[in-house]
């Protein structure tokens, strides 16, 4: 069913909070810190904006690993957002592990706006971990990636 590991490149999704982690990622950029290009970043106002539906849908749409990143507890721009993230994420991660998703596929990290280096390190290590782990066998079993009929998605369609 899944592509052989040789020609497979890990696809990662990162939900980055706008005030800290996204800014940290930008800092890694302005400091020209190099890291693998496997991460697709989705910006959210706060890490507490991330719903479990997004994480599960991402895994199902071909992501081999999902990162949720936010400000260090106490530094949240909205003061309490990441406290809720911390509670929700621990419950959803244990639940997914229980239901058979490898725990290393879903991770959370506190990355401040001043920690460009940490963002580079988290992404690099995450790509390596997922490369070892192999593709996420979460896609529908009959092999082809589910693509709704063209008319049902007139507005978007599929490019690659």
């Amino acid at each position, binding site marked *: 069913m899944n592509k052989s590991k040789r020609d497979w490149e890990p696809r990662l999704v990162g939900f980055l909070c706008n005030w800290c982690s996204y800014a940290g990622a930008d800092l890694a950029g302005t400091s020209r810190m190099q890291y693998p290009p496997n991460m697709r970043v989705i910006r959210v106002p706060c890490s507490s904006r991330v719903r*479990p*539906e997004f994480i599960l849908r991402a895994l199902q749409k071909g992501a081999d690993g999902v990162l949720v990143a936010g400000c260090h507890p106490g530094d949240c721009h909205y003061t309490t957002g990441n406290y809720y993230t*911390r*509670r929700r994420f621990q*419950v959803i991660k244990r*639940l997914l592990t229980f*239901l*058979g998703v490898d725990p290393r596929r879903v991770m959370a990290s506190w990355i401040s706006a001043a920690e460009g280096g940490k963002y580079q390190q988290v992404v690099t290590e995450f790509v390596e971990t997922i490369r070892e782990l192999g593709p996420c066998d*979460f896609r*529908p079993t009959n092999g082809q990636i589910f693509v709704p009929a063209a008319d049902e998605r007139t507005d978007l369609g599929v490019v690659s």
Partner: protein
Amino acid sequence: MTTIQDELRETARTLLAEGQVDCVLGWAWEEELQRAVPCFVRAAEDAKRLIWDERCVVSLAPFLLHMKRQLSSVRTEPSRTAIVVKGCDARGVVRILRDQQLERDEVLIIGVVCQGVGDPDNRPAKCRECQYHVPPVYDLLLGEEPKETQTPSSPLLERVREIEGWDVADRASYWREHFSRCLRCYACRQVCPACNCVECIFDSERTRWTYKRTTAEENMIFHAIRAFHVAGRCVECGECERACPMGIPLMEINKKVASDIKELFSVPDAGVDLREEPPLVRYETGDLDHFV
């Protein structure tokens, strides 16, 4: 000597006669179905139809939710309903009250002391490990409180620990097999006191939360999200597993989440205290922090 059932009927009759309540929601025996079914008694003389014995398995709490939805669309002047509850049902009522779907004065809780329902030599899992023989919340209590009852071990929790012990691939195939049988009939949602959404995201047309296919993966997403939505609020009443036509062990998932939450945030059981706060909408600055 008078049985609980007699006391129940007498209580219902007086409540209705004195007009303290508009309706008493209890169980009645349905001959053709050979099953005890929910019964809405509105006239005092019908109180004698109410029964109480081991056949009263169905939890009546969710019906309060449905009544409220219909009632609010029909009745305006304040109505008050009495409901007959076992320990686990009472936790369901607390759930509905704490989720602000009902005002406290809209419901009168008649608690009955229960030693377990269903088939005596094959009790449902929830009865075998039940700690709430006496409903944690009630206005009236029928039956004497048992002397002291030691807290039984939890076979369900042991089962969860066992599953946790397997390696990831085995767990994945275990659940994939169960979820491949799920019809998405949503019975588990209909009987759940914690599922009080007006429109469930899985029915939503506007926002494409999920696809309508019932593959093992889609069903896994449904069950993971359902378990998360009720996380910290599930009162472990076991109705979802009982109602599931395909025999999917939903209580194993609920027990897993409930024990995780208890361990992570050291909070009491859900649906026991009328002042409880759902743990996932609160925080402590000192919460555990496994993050990198």
